């Protein structure tokens, strides 16, 4: 018995210590290739540091037209993935797939050029921005979908060219930006109404908007033809917003001003501005809350920022031009970056090790890799 205690217990402890090294660490994410009408399931094996396409799923309705899968998300229970098909006749739609079979389950019509989206763990509803990228400069909407029944239950009026739909950790606040009005917009995910809007321009910050409820203001007299607002020339052109997982901050990519903005959701004002690489496009705060990873669309690179110090830890070149989406693994160890490419180039997914701050592998995808969302981590 003594022998057993002396031998077996240390062996168990040793096994516990070395198990993480021996057990495979596999990460899976879904990636939309917008100019190929494909969604890829990518698999990264952390032990071998190898990224591969595990499966390719053709999406869209018209085999001889480009339907344009753009935004993608996975349900909190991991059972379904959803992709927004941006190019419609004229409206795009949301397609729901099974992660088990990668087969189409159902669709729901959305607005013009639907883009990024996420599902609230609190409400169970999916919030997708109707980017209306190519339409007239008129206010658009955030469509709220019941992902179970795939019924569009309400369209929430928002700004012009809304993008970057992300939810707070508690699922009660949805954040997106209005690219052409330079605004961060917060939706109460439960009442499905815009709760706050924040002008992101430096000049606008001098005005105190605190307490203003723009949703009840009559802006009609300010409108130009077709309801457009020609008086505002966007500067920041924000393209993404992501709330911090634990702290009352939202981080915004200022695509037009080459900035990373930090906004306090407590005070509802910009607390810090950081100059970034060219044309920051998407970003994500790491689940451990320490880093912000920003894709620099204009220079084919990815910036990794330390939130506490406000320093850019590294700017890592991507494997090709036109960096797009960011997804960070739940353990905050790796960032997956989609890169669109140009013309006939394939798209790609890069994997960045957030400890070494180096690109550890990449895989080619269909053309114009864009939307990306983490699915699961398997030990």
């Amino acid at each position, binding site marked *: 018995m003594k022998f057993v205690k002396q031998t077996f217990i240390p062996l168990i402890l040793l096994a516990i210590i070395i198990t993480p090294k021996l057990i495979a660490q596999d990460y899976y994410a879904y990636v939309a290739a917008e100019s190929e009408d494909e969604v890829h399931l990518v698999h990264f094996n952390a032990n071998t540091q190898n990224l591969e396409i595990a499966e390719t799923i053709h999406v869209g309705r018209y085999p001889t037209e480009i339907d344009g899968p753009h935004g993608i998300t996975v349900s909190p229970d991991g059972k379904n993935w959803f992709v927004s098909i941006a190019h419609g006749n004229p409206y795009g739609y949301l397609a729901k797939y099974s992660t088990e079979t990668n087969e189409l389950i159902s669709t729901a019509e959305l607005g013009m050029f639907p883009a990024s989206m996420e599902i609230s763990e609190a*409400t169970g*509803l999916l919030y997708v921005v109707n980017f209306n990228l190519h339409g007239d400069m008129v206010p658009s909407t955030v469509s709220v979908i019941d992902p179970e029944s795939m019924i569009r239950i309400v369209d929430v009026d928002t700004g012009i060219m809304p993008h970057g739909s992300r939810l707070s950790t508690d699922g009660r606040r949805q954040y997106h930006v209005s690219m052409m009005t330079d605004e961060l917009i917060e939706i109460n995910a439960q009442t499905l109404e815009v709760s706050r809007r924040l002008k992101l321009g430096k000049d606008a910050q001098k005005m105190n908007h605190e307490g203003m409820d723009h949703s009840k203001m009559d802006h009609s007299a300010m409108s130009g033809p077709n309801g457009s607002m020609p008086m505002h020339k966007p500067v920041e052109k924000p393209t993404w917003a992501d709330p911090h997982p634990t702290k009352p901050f939202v981080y915004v990519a200022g695509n037009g001003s080459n900035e990373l903005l930090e906004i306090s959701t407590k005070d509802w004002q910009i607390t810090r501005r950081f100059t970034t690489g060219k044309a920051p496009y998407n970003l994500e705060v790491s689940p451990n809350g320490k880093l912000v990873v920003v894709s620099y669309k204009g220079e084919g690179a990815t910036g990794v920022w330390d939130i506490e110090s406000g320093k850019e830890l590294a700017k890592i070149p991507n494997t090709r031009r036109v960096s797009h989406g960011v997804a960070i693994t739940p353990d905050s160890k790796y960032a997956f970056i989609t890169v669109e490419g140009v013309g006939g180039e394939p798209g790609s997914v890069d994997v960045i090790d957030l400890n070494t701050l180096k690109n550890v592998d990449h895989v080619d995808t269909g053309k114009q890799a864009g939307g990306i969302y983490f699915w699961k981590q398997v030990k």
Partner: protein
Amino acid sequence: MKKSLIALLGMIFLGASQVYAQGTNELKIVVNPDPININVGEEIQINAKVVNADGVVQPDTVLFFSRSPRSLSVSREGYAKALKPGTSNVMVFKPAQGESPSIRTTIEVMVTYPKLEKLVFTESTSEMYEGTSFLTSTVIYDEMDFLRDDLEITDFRSSKPDVAQINRYGKINAKKPGKTTISATYDGITTSFDLRVEENPVRSVELSVDKESARTGDVLHLTAIAKDRKDREVEDAPIEYSFTSVPDDHRGQGASAQIEQDGRFVANHPGLYTIIARNAGSVDEVTVRIEPRNVGRDISVAGFGAVSDVYTSDLWVWEGVDGRDYAVTGTWSAKGDALFWDVTDPSNMHIIDTVTVDARTVNDVKVSEDGRIAVISREGASNRKNGLVILDVSDPSDVKILSRFDDGLSGGVHNVFIDKGYVYAINNGRKYDIINIKDPANPFRVSEFELDTPGHSVHDVWVVDGIAYSSNWTDGVVAVDVGGNATPDMPGAGGSPENPVKLGSYTYPSGWNHAAFPFKSKSADKFYIAAGDEAFPNGEAAGYIHFFDLSSWENGQEVARYEVPEAGTHNIWIQDDVMYVAYYQGGLRIVDVSGELMGNLYDQGREIARYLPKDPDGKIPNSPQAWGPQPYKDLIFVSDMNSGLWALKLSPPNTASAQ
């Protein structure tokens, strides 16, 4: 050490139990009233509360959403108004509050149909001749004035069946002179009209046909004259047309002909047809011989330019300023190339230049009438600006980019057309912009045309004689005057490229309208629009060509179709009463569209030739996917997605190896 290990394992199990303990909350939503039944137009407050497993009401708020807001409007507070009858679902949703998770339930609201109110004969007659028949038509409305087209009315009666009888389909047979009342009843609601049956003066019917022999697909016009005992015409005597047939091939052949009660007849198969005109007991008949159409011709490949590394899209073939023949083809989901070919010797067609633009797809390519300017469309530009590119193609072996135009065209240009110094560019599938390119280095927009229908979308535009014909999916083909030559029977509306004016639109139920080609028949006094579908209902291309007969811009009647059952249409071209259709997996179809059109041309022996373009070394080997046809000089050029550019040649007429 042991204690530490046990503690560690314990923590692991504890963590697991917490995870699995989630989702055991037993809150539920209780709705009142339940069930909910209301009438159309009525309003009701739906109440809901959240209770726990013990039935204790929780202080949670709930929200209401209608899943069919066009039938049942519901405010978030649950105030509902029934707009249409039927069953509507309402989602009742409790957001997460504190530690309490979100829950939802769906309730059914039965909106009952309003009481039926009136029954109306929409087709009726006050007089009939003895021995004749008449088909009535009825509709029923409810108190909300909704048409109840879900109800079938079968209770028809005649007050004097010996005078006139009416069957369950509403068809009246006049038996003898006298008066009767014809009624229809549904669920206690009755409507009626008085009918007088008169002695039938008709003693004979004379039938004539404009041709005693014809070919399959030829439309025959019937004239029947009813005469009384003094041989005078009875102008108001109704005539019923029918036919019997003895097709040459009578071994299980399908429907052999089609006859309309307005006196048109067309046969699908050769044989003897006896056409009958009847008024009561007066009958006349004419027998006509229908011959095979015999339009089949052999088709051969005059040349092939393989494109195997990328998908090929549209084409344009033209005579260059140097007198040689050239073609340009686009590329699809590739790297933004437009390929320029010398096709003067089709057996040796070859690429002489390639223009690459920032795009993934160059979907459409067009060349100006003088052969000097080309316009190519851009989709999938890396900067998402897309738009179009204007080229100098006066030397197709050295094509130069003159300008790019993407102002307001960032959504991508899917199709373009050049006409008299203007480009018509499909803008983001929403409208088309008209761009002046008379100075091709400095293009500028002069106008745009956009429909105002809900959810409108446009796919293509083609300009002929100053009229722009756009293809608009559910909105069908829309004709717009952009400087048309007015004719007395089809007057324009004073439009111009700077001032496009809508003339008319021609829709059909499927909503698949993708292409359009207008043509004035060379052999019949007819003006047709051929409207092509594009659809992939089951993942495979489907759809057909619809033919609209336009008597005026406001009146277009769909009279015929060309439907290949196993394939789907893409682009079309019609020249000299011959239609060329790129029928995707069905290859190129060449169809005789001469004369008046009626019925399904596919069944009428009108197909002149077909060719399946396929290449074992193609992008997808041996897989025809014909994209666009263009007759040019004595050849037919076809672009095929999977193989490239083809030049085909028809044998002379009536020399087909097999008809």
